[in-house]
């Protein structure tokens, strides 16, 4: 992977930057060219709180290339408290015990490496929010 393809997504992957429509207040993550609710192209950048709950989830037991060393791993759609839903790994827990509705919180983690000399990719993963 070329480095620019990685770094141009950094604001979203590292800081959970989302786009809020100034007209209808709908929040898109990642941002869209125009608002899927009202069509407006006037957005402001906001930072998501990183807190939400599991909307649906699974355990990946057969992984794509680059993830073989991580199986089995939890994966789910996390519905953020601000509204947007995010696909992410769910880690630091027994994925067998996860339930729909469980509270989750954002963590900054290593995702994978692009071979032995390529980019080391980081982004959000989610872990159970135990309220610490």
């Amino acid at each position: 992977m070329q480095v620019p393809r990685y770094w141009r997504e950094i604001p979203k992957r590292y800081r959970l930057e989302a786009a809020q429509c100034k007209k209808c207040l709908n929040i898109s993550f990642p941002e869209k060219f125009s608002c899927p609710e009202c069509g407006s192209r006037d957005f402001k950048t906001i930072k998501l709180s990183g807190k939400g709950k599991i909307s649906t989830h699974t355990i990946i037991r057969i992984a794509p290339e680059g993830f073989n060393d991580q199986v089995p791993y939890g994966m789910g759609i996390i519905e953020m408290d601000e509204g947007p839903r995010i696909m992410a790994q769910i880690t630091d827990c027994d994925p067998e015990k996860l339930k729909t509705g469980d509270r989750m919180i954002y963590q900054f983690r290593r995702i994978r490496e692009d071979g032995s000399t390529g980019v080391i990719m980081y982004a959000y993963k989610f872990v159970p929010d135990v309220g610490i």
Partner: protein
Amino acid sequence: MRKLAIIGIGLIKWGELWEKSIRQIAAEAISKCLEDAGTDRIDAMTIGNMSGGLFNGQEHLSSLIPDHLGRKNIPAMRIESACASGGMAVRTACLEVASGFSDYAIAVGVEKMTDISGNEATYALATAADQDYEAFHGVTFPGLYAMMAKAHMDRYGTTRDQLSSVVIKNHYNGSLNPNAQFPFKITSDQVLKSPMVSDPLRLLDCSPITDGAAAVLITTLEEAKKLKKQPVFISGIGHASDSIALSSRKDILKLEAVELSTDKALKMAGKSIRDIDFAEVHDCFSIAEIMILEALGVVAPGEGGKASSDGLTGLNGNFPVNPSGGLKSKGHPVGATGVAQICEAVTQLRGEAGERQLKNIRTGLTQNMGGSAGSSVVHILEVI
């Protein structure tokens, strides 16, 4: 718009075709199709193919396939819409003929998936999802459909046995289809003992990796009457897209592209879903067939699981689904699937389906979708 008819179909035996290349299987399907139609005429060719680039390191199929066929000057184009590439190629061939631009258009669907390892194929298939916001995080297609299955179970109480009933039914149908990749029956116990791929989906909930090709020849209804085979009328075509990322959808159990493409096709044909006698649908995973039944409007949301285990969709049910064996048993060479669905519908409507022949049918529907239903195309076919 000119009226459309299918006058020839060509399907080869699907499977792991180690001895054959992508160009060879495409040419074989085209050749069978022309033989079936009783004509050699091709004014235009559309090629449904998801990823010659990733599966075979080969792009530019629009030159490769006519060239290998020995008809190097045919105007051809490749159509890509992930797993819906085949259905989209048929639709595009229909547009060629309906517009009057061509009189005879052939749609060929082809995917040669075993030229790379299973791991690499999983990666290639995952490119049908959002690369930056889904695949980047390590989700797979079984994973995406597993999340839909989990949500369906949570909301509607859909059961493991109901998922299995789809798989058992499709393998039974496929056991009667000589072109199927896995033409054998399976039991509930075999499904339950197959390895977990992505909870709750097990290996036998998933469609396989397949090499395969299929072709259909389309012309006008008027031209069709000059040819030897009983023509099948294409009365409805519908096509719609939806967000690529599953996480973007407010309700992941609503297959909006499937609903919209079905509504458009039915409207064009002047029919309701009650007028349809059978369907070939995109059962890439067991849960997909259940959700598609709901999206087509055959049953209400949440009732797809029960309808499947109650036998609604069996060969002798009130609404047979996937008499061919579906993607599950027949195989899923992604770009070929949508074309092969049309081949099965035509075979059934002609009364040539042998042991799996449906009784008293006049109208069939095919539904082919890409990714996690980010695109869907529906055709309605009728006996004239």
